[in-house]
């Protein structure tokens, strides 16, 4: 990859004064080294993982749509106790890989998957999809609460398929705890009967996280959960994701390199369907082994 960056990034105004360079503030409290290689992300504020348990194993997985290969032979571990971030330019297959972890790719009739994905040492193809998707839940790019009350959004997950049998009272503790784990309970506890779609974007997204947590999953998949949100809501959700990593294995797809640097323990960089590099966040951003990774994290393309 020796292609020069696209010209738009080098646009210089003839009469413009030279850009003022402001030194980034130095955090003296962080023990982590500053990222070289032109990467200027905010410093990581999270500590090292306390433990890590392997929950999922992606083993030589390839996914193709009709005649286009989206993911080519990727192998990755997914561990509880850490946040795994998938990064890469648009169309690199990171979302497809994420969706194959709970067999959502099967909803696309043209998609075919080869290789194995194991959840606690069981091939996910042997697990009934509805059961698998309760163990591996997902949060999407656009906040998408269901058009019902805040309470019912969570209760929907807890109830048996389409049934309404369980009464409100019986579900209350579970609903409250899910909202609490998503850090939303304090904000909505007086308005549990309000329509969920009237919450703010950040609250909606946390409700979606609460919904995903209500199923008591082992793995939580997040597909660019902050890309539709403002910086403040983003920060709240990032803090939440880091907090969740001890309870569930977290896999997050993100376009935002700074975000990956801030919250991920391990980062997988994908490019054109290939897994280019998998490493700890500090190593991948600090001293990438591959040249493509180096170019991507320094902003040369993508």
């Amino acid at each position, binding site marked *: 990859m020796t292609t020069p960056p696209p010209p738009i990034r080098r646009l210089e105004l003839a009469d413009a004064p030279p850009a003022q360079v402001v030194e980034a503030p130095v955090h003296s409290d962080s023990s982590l080294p500053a990222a070289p290689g032109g990467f200027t992300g905010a410093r990581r504020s999270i500590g090292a993982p306390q433990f890590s348990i392997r929950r999922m194993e992606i083993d030589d997985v390839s996914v193709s749509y009709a005649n286009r290969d989206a993911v080519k032979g990727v192998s990755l571990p997914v561990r509880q106790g850490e946040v795994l971030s998938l990064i890469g330019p648009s169309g690199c297959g990171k979302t497809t890989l994420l969706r194959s972890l709970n067999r959502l790719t099967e909803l696309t009739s043209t998609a075919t998957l080869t290789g194995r994905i194991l959840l606690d040492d069981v091939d996910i193809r042997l697990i009934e999809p509805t*059961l698998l998707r309760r163990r591996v839940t997902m949060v999407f790019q656009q906040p998408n609460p269901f*058009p019902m009350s805040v309470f019912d959004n969570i209760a929907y997950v807890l109830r048996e398929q389409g049934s309404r049998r369980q009464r409100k009272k019986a579900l209350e503790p579970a609903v409250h705890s899910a909202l609490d784990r998503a850090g939303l309970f304090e904000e909505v506890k007086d308005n549990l009967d309000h329509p969920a779609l009237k919450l703010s974007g950040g609250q909606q997204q946390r409700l979606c996280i609460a919904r995903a947590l*209500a199923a008591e999953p082992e793995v939580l998949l997040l597909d660019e959960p902050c890309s539709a949100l403002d910086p403040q809501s983003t920060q709240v959700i990032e803090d939440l994701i880091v907090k969740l990593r001890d309870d569930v294995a977290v896999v997050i797809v993100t376009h935002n390199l700074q975000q990956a640097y801030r919250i991920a323990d391990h980062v997988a960089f994908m490019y054109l369907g290939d897994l280019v590099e998998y490493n700890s966040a500090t190593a991948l951003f600090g001293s990438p082994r591959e040249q493509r990774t180096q170019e991507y994290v320094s902003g040369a393309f993508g």
Partner: protein
Amino acid sequence: MESSLATPPAAPPPGGPQIPSNATKGAVEGSATWRLSDRIGLAICWALGLLFCAIAVAIAVYLFIQGIKYLKPSMLVTPAAAGFSEGETGGFSDAFVGTLIVGVMGMAIALPAGIAIAVWLVEYGRPAALARVTESTIEAIAGIPSIVLALFGTVIFSNTALAFLSRSNEGVVFGRSFFAASAMLSLVALPLIVASVREGLHSIPRHVREASYAVGKTKAATTRRILLPASRPQVATGAMLGLGRIIGDTAIIVVLLGATQNFAPVGGNFPFNYLRGAGTTLTNFVYEASPTGNLNQPQKAYAAAFVLLLMVLALNGAVDIIHRRARKVGTWSS
């Protein structure tokens, strides 16, 4: 030609036809710089819009005036009768009740069927060839004039196998009844319901369905608890439009319900003796009471038409309320 809709406040139009509008200051874009043909087009749109508003208002106002003048509440509870003067011929209670019956019975068939077809087309739609055929069939039904449906209905319901749905005499099946008329009328409403529900389902982003699947819900549970509730306004719109078409249809009533102005119950237990018999509706009554019909009592025709208009306006109002309520629940940003 200037339309004041889009005139910037700084440059008032120098003459030209002034079309009154509720233009606010700082309108989006002036038409002064448009090509002449575009400005003429805009003016034609305006003129046509106003023309149709005027026509609708004229009909409503005229019917209101006539209706209030001629409608007596007693007409709604007095059946039509034979007689030589307006005072002796009674009202149109049978027609009024008949309209309610075909409305309820037609919708009882068309609404569940329409929702089911729309859900199948949007959420399943496999095999694709069958879905395409279904789609064009529904469109074809929408295009068939109701008088043709009515004739087809006589063929079906005169069948001896369906004799239990209407009056029969010495093995000859009459084929005219509320059952027959409602069944064919449901076909008139069906395409509208299917189209509206499909539109509602299509407007739900894909990721909302996936969010439901992603917490382990089946397609059936998702459809029942998320998709259909989310498209409730469109279901209601389709139902109201369909109901409007049913109570407004005349051809099927004349052919399949009978040219009588009263209920003509047949033997059997209570509701079925009426439903198996011939009858009438408000549209049929208006047709017969108009100067071209057999009754020739235009005043009562106006009164009945006024009742019909009120029913349709009530349906429109109901749709409006449902949509306003849906807006309170909110929707997804796309």
